[in-house]
């Protein structure tokens, strides 16, 4: 066993390639034989990934899902932000600059609106659950934006650590919900063209959720959604601890 684990750790990235290939094949099988192609194999594989992450997280008590299981550490490299962002950038190859330029200002509008709506929604829920101080409200509101905006805001306004943990959890729930929910909700919101994909990216903003949600819906839309989503976390980290927090403090 010792030799095996040592080998797997030493070749972590290759092990991850094989593991992901296995998950994708399993997803394809389930899609074909159980779901009769009603849900694409890639969507099933992404969902399977989340299930493995949940089971692994509960068993190991770690934060990185399957990557915390002995021998699978390479998953966090392959699924980390470096490979994710690199692969997202490569999808821009087929994107049309003309379409991007045309949706430009609406994309910007959707970014601001997306942060605003999420912040207010998260904040209102925190209020209902008994948090009435500006610091906690702002942190949980920011957590409803993304799991990065939450802790960054929490650290900036010096919120308590359990509130910060809560904001991270809310952000992770969001990213998972967007991943699973997008293919289901896509027909209802007209998410089938680059224009709407850019608005969607700006409104939801969680890079991991948006990139996975679009991959499961229509991979051709990935570059458009990712393009706006990539500005969301930065803008959220800019607005939440400053303008939105100060506004909240004034109001209370």
């Amino acid at each position: 066993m010792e030799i095996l684990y040592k080998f797997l750790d030493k070749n972590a990235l290759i092990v991850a390639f094989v593991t992901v290939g296995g998950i994708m094949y399993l997803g394809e099988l389930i899609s074909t034989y159980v779901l009769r192609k009603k849900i694409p194999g890639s969507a099933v594989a992404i969902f399977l990934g989340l299930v493995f992450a949940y089971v692994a997280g509960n068993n190991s008590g770690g934060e990185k899902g399957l990557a915390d299981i002995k021998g699978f550490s390479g998953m966090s490299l392959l699924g980390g932000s470096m490979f994710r962002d690199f692969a997202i950038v490569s999808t821009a190859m087929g994107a049309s600059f003309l379409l991007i330029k045309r949706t430009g200002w609406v994309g910007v509008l959707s970014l601001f609106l997306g942060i605003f709506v999420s912040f207010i929604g998260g904040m209102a829920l925190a209020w209902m659950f008994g948090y009435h101080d500006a610091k906690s409200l702002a942190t949980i509101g920011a957590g409803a934006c993304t799991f990065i905006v939450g802790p960054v805001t929490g650290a900036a306004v010096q919120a308590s650590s359990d509130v910060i943990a809560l904001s991270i959890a809310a952000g992770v729930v969001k990213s998972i919900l967007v991943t699973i929910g997008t293919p289901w909700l896509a027909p209802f919101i007209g998410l089938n063209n680059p224009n709407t994909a850019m608005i969607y990216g700006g409104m939801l903003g969680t890079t991991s959720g948006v990139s996975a949600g679009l991959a499961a819906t229509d991979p051709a839309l990935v570059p458009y959604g990712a393009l706006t989503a990539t500005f969301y976390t930065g803008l959220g980290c800019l607005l939440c601890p400053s303008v939105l927090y100060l506004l909240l403090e004034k109001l209370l």
Partner: protein
Amino acid sequence: MVIYGVTFLGACYIIGQLIGDYLAKLLGVQANVGGVGFAMLLLIVFHDFLHKRHFFPAESEKGVLFWSQMYIPVIVAMSATQNAALAINSGVLALLAGIIPVLMCFACIPLISKLSNKNLSADGNSL
């Protein structure tokens, strides 16, 4: 050669991410601001520029296309390394704060989409 395509992609990635980091520093933000977005714009613009001048042979394009086909596997690896246990075990407020604002945002999408369609010519919606 394939490596030229990967190099091109990598160069766009590095320059774009650096722009995102420096822009964040300039704005005083503790996160990257649009790094991936700048990288994508660079890739689209430079690819177009080079392609028109026949400096981007199909062989080099393979280096970029390989990674765009690796996109979904990378996303599967990402979802397998999410902190899903934390999300599900953190209690009702975390769940609701992650769910309700998302539904509110989804509801806004058709509205903005309508707003933008008024300002676009009909073919903006066709691809």
